């Protein structure tokens, strides 16, 4: 952010104060930034040193005894979903961070993020399905006890539609929440990628703060047991839907590659076939490595 845009954003956040006060505050920060630039920092670095602008604005306002409360308009249910999603995201973002320390390309990071995101979403869709299926089975069982006539069939049908609609809404909420958090996380990640990998106080602070957020999120859920169970359930799900097929395709493609080499040695030069088998094998093995890291990652240790 440039000095100008930082100061004008700050000004807006402080607009509840009197103009004189705002001018005074803004000029102080402006002078501070100028001093830092004189000491050799760039505009961007000087602004970054202030940290999150909303937190800063809140602190300034608190000096005038103005309490800013962030009113959450979420219902209890939405909060539950969001906490659920947050926990999954924190889980895989920790995995992601440990893996991405070895990665240098932003494109690869994005791809990894999307892949893991899809894994988490499909897991959640499957996992959340369970109570709905149970509800349906119970409903079916109860109705099945009574006479088997048109009325009970209609009731059953209505029940099924009702359940499906609620499930659909829940899934949409999960995906929306996921995307929202994903964007927030990604923005934080982009900021820390711009900073030079040399020892930099700002990068440390941001990581510190996100660690604190992660700790607070995992403390907020009343059950640590639930959290650990979730991790285990995600892993089991991943094993069945991704890992086993991936290993199978590794083996299959390796055999295929062997076959292609064999026919090469016998005079049939099919480069197209070679390239596609080789390419698929590489992708499959890369995904297997990724998923292996994900599965055997000891969550939570830093």
């Amino acid at each position, binding site marked *: 952010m440039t000095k100008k845009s930082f100061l004008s954003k700050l000004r807006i956040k402080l607009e509840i104060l009197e103009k004189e006060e705002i001018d005074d505050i803004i000029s*102080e920060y402006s002078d501070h930034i100028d001093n830092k630039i004189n000491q050799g920092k760039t505009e961007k670095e000087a602004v970054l040193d202030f*940290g999150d602008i909303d937190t800063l604005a809140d602190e300034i306002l608190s000096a005038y005894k103005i309490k800013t409360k962030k009113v959450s308009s979420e219902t209890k249910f939405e909060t539950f979903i969001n906490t659920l999603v947050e926990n999954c995201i924190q889980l895989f973002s920790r995995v992601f961070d440990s893996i991405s320390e070895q990665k240098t390309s932003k494109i690869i990071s994005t791809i990894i993020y999307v892949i893991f995101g899809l894994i988490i979403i499909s897991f959640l869709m499957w996992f959340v399905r369970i109570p709905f299926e149970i509800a349906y089975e119970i409903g079916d069982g109860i109705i099945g006890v009574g006479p088997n006539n048109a009325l009970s069939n209609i009731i059953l049908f209505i029940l099924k539609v009702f359940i499906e609609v609620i499930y659909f809404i829940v899934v949409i909420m999960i995906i929306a929440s996921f995307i929202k958090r994903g964007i927030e996380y990604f923005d934080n990640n982009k900021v820390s990628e711009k900073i030079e990998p040399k020892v930099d106080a700002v990068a440390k602070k941001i990581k510190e703060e996100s660690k604190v957020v992660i700790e607070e999120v995992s403390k907020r859920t009343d059950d640590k047991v639930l959290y650990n169970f979730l991790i285990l359930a995600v892993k089991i799900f991943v094993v069945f839907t991704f890992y086993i097929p991936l290993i199978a395709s590794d083996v299959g493609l390796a055999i295929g590659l062997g076959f292609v080499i064999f026919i090469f040695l016998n005079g049939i030069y099919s480069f197209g076939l070679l390239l596609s088998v080789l390419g698929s094998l590489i992708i499959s093995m890369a995904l297997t490595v990724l998923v292996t890291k994900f599965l055997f990652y000891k969550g939570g240790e830093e």
Partner: protein
Amino acid sequence: MNTQFKKGVLELIVLNAVNKTDMYGYELVVSVSKVVDVNEGTIYPLLKRLTNDKCFVTYIIESNEGPPRKYYKITPLGISKLEKLIIQWTEFSKNVENYLKGVKEND
């Protein structure tokens, strides 16, 4: 370093620094950062608050090197607050140290 520690002690450090000599904003931030590493953004709100609470007064000095600077000066109220904080801090840190020493002896 622990953020909670820093926050608690920041006021004490700022009051002490200005008590030693009048300072302007940036100068103060630099000198406080030598004692604890804090987000510079948080120092200005603290200065504001202490000024609003009448612990500091401010005055402007034109500078040849650039824009006019706002200097902070401690008031008698500020001094008394500083003294109270120093007493609290001394007692607090003494208690913690003694506690830790006691634990070590029992090991």
